[in-house]
């Protein structure tokens, strides 16, 4: 999966789950301070990402280190590279 493809799919998740406008979804945007997600929204986000990418990441500690959209794109790219087991 190419980098841009991952970015597009992650952005789709944000648009579908939170109705955040595409223009807002930039790599440097902070998920909490700029986009307004809170810890409970992150749970919803993880569920949506699991469904979209067909992976199981609910208990992955690395999620705690994600703060920007860029971090999230990198994280998903890493998952794909690692070949995380499907749900």
């Amino acid at each position, binding site marked *: 999966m190419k980098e841009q493809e991952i970015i597009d799919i992650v952005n789709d998740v944000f648009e579908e*789950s*939170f*109705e955040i406008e595409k223009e807002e979804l930039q790599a440097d945007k902070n998920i*909490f*301070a700029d986009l*307004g*997600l*809170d810890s*409970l*929204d992150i749970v*919803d986000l993880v569920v949506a990402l699991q469904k979209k990418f067909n992976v199981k990441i609910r208990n992955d500690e690395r999620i705690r280190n994600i703060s920007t959209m860029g971090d999230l794109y990198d994280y998903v790219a890493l998952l794909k590279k690692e070949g995380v087991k499907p749900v």
Partner: protein
Amino acid sequence: MKYFLSIYIYSIVIMFTVLIAPFSILYLIFLKILFSKRTFLKRLRRFISWYGIIIVRILIFPFIKTKFTDTAKKEKIAPCIFVCNHRSSSDPFLLSFLPYEIIQIVSDWPFRIPVLGVMAKLAGYISIKEMKHDDFFATAEELLRQGVSLGAFPEGTRSGSNKMGQFHGAIFRVALKVKCPIVPLCVIGNENIPTRDFILNSGTVKMKKLPAIYYDKYKDTTPFKLKNYVRNIIIEETARMENEA
């Protein structure tokens, strides 16, 4: 001048609190002995509201003036969730204007204030930082089912300016589950009353209660969209209030 004002107001509030403390204790004992737990809590919450009203209406006047506007007086809203912007630590006192049985959802620090902290704890105020999510949801839902309204400051921390922070969504998840009205409250003028260093300045603080948002209006939305919907209503109204001021 500002130090004089701070010393004057804090002194008068402390004196008032010390003066009524013995009567409060007697009143609480009286309530506890004669009434059921539910009535005890109801009266105690009313008592706290009156304490707040005396401070915001009388003790700080004329240096700090407060004005409350209810734009939908005839609405039957209780039990509901009041959602207020949070510019200053004086915001919780302003909820005394609301003539309802209210529990405030606060951070942990108000519980450390002498006397007030004890009263808040006794009245069942919720310290959201000290609770697990599930416990918070269960407590909030139970209070609403008992007919008690909730007062929340979803920014979580005071902004100290006219900018509004992002909202936390927990209280909106409760609203979606319990299907109760959400009532936006807009406060302006207290960004520096007091400052983050608790220095008081003179000025006029205005609070406006907006029409309720009923479940039918928000039932098909997600917690994320709901919190931003309410946040935008408050942003627009506070901007309008600032322009009128």
